[in-house]
């Protein structure tokens, strides 16, 4: 039990030393970034989220037909995974436009 207490004490002191020595300079580095991000209007948050879906959607549409059908038993339209991807992204983008 004594050993456990000693170990815990050393660990706690090490963490405290780490927070005291590294915490303030890193906080000073990170703080301006936090303040800048907080100053951004919330429409930029929504645009970023929806923009992510749009960029991934454009990339998915640009994939080659042979690549998305590779291994499929036939080339039926419903097996086109680009259509699946665009449908999925459209639903998610709508959710973020509505609730973002």
């Amino acid at each position: 039990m004594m050993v456990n207490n000693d170990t815990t004490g050393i660990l706690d002191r090490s963490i405290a030393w780490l927070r005291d020595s590294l915490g303030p300079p890193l906080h000073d580095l990170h703080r301006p970034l936090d303040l800048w991000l907080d100053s951004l209007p919330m429409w930029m948050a929504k645009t970023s989220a929806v923009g992510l879906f749009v960029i991934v959607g454009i990339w998915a549409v640009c994939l080659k037909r042979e690549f998305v059908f590779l291994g499929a038993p036939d080339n039926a339209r419903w097996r086109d995974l680009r259509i699946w991807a665009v449908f999925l992204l459209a639903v998610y983008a709508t959710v973020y436009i509505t609730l973002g």
Partner: protein
Amino acid sequence: MGDFAGQLASIDYLIIGVYMAGVLLVGTFFGRYVHSSGDLFLAGRSLPFWAIGMSIVVSDIGAIDLIAGAGGAYEQGIAQANFDWIGSVPAVLIAAFVFLPYYWRAGVYTVPEFLTRRYNAGTGWVQAVMLLFFMAANVAVFLWMSAVFLNEVLGWSHLTAIWATVIVVGIYTVTGGLAAVVMTDVMQLVVMFVGAAALLILSMWEVGGWSGMTQTILEQGDKGPEFFHLLVPHLADTEYPWTGMVFSLGLIMSTSYFVANQAVMQRALGARTEWDAKAGMIFAGLFKLFIPVLVFVPGLAARAIDPNLGDEADKAVPMLVNKLLPAGLKGLMFAAFLAALMSSVDSYLNSCATVFMSDVYDRIHRRFAGKELTDRQGVILGRVLTATILIGAALVAPQVRNFGTIYEAIQTLLSLFQGPTLAILLLGIFWRGATPWGGFAGLTLGVITTIVLNLLGNSVFPSNTPFLFVSFWSFFLSLGFTVFVSLLTPRAPPEKLRGLVYSRVLSDSEAQQALRERVESD
């Protein structure tokens, strides 16, 4: 959970019994198709896309998510839903169209296996040890949670409940392997969705629909309109600022989860064709859409019904179950909790055995015996390994009670290597200049940096639970470590990289032939 005790009627017990018997029957049925370790761990590459998608989703949702997820929504609002929405959809598409075809064509079955081939044995070992510890610990934690649940609901002792779960899950996981795990997962997803949908419909009826619920919560006065927004300001009083949700969760954490988590990738690699593997991943993204609706909206409804749960937000779902569900549906809801628990245990168990067999035992065996295992030896050893891990986890499970925050500790452990793993995977696949020592340094220094940043916590970042910030920075720092050390250390010979760099795996048949030859000669 204690609120459930003594609430069940005979019809509820009957439904739970039928569910358990059904899972056992379906699970053991697949044992007849297991003739090699490939059948045991990759389902003989026979899985259809719909089973893969459903299994990925249900393995990701544990009983704790059903309870704590709703509790989180009760406290934090719908920002909690980001974990299943933006935390899955860009990632499943990146996994389906970038990483999966790569793994599939490169012939790798585990991430440590890739890291060993692309970098060196040390990098693979570090990743394998971390993965094994994480998955084995998860099996023990889920067994303990199962024991607590069965103790509360059926009054069984903890030990009886643990060994009952071990027997049921063990029988079908040991005999049927991945195919049994995936097909029982499909059953479990249906049960979970039906149970959760019943709770959703009745709770929404109780609060007068979405508009009635939002109006009631706003009139209560302690929550503003931001409670119903997915994206909240960077320095707002929340654990989930929009910057962390979009840039850390949406791009880094979720991508790492879907491309480096053995439990996810193994299902896709068990697909019958490359198309099924990709389609299964995207199909999982479709099901993920429903999780917040089924899990978090009842949490919001609970707030409208009773805003005074205070620190006991996790009682939101038990309160709704007791208040709203009639006999029969209550049994279905309990079956849904059991399904969530069992699917998590069987998934991590099977994946843990796969990593141990592929990345530890097989390497040692080949080095000392100088030959590969026969199919029969592979099946026997795989089953013995699965059973051993399960029994070991069962023996350790009661100790979980002594570590109140062990679940959080395990989740923190997972977050420690998500950023570094994604960094060295991306560089390994897309940059030929990444050297063996660069990959090793990127992983180890990245994990050490992540630990330090976690310890610094709110002394640096504007949150008491800064895992979103830590994952973001650890990813970029690991990229930096890998590039820096790679520029100072010798590259692997070009022959070693043939077939292991993305563009050549996709288009260069010569490289694929070289890879096949290397796999055969390994």
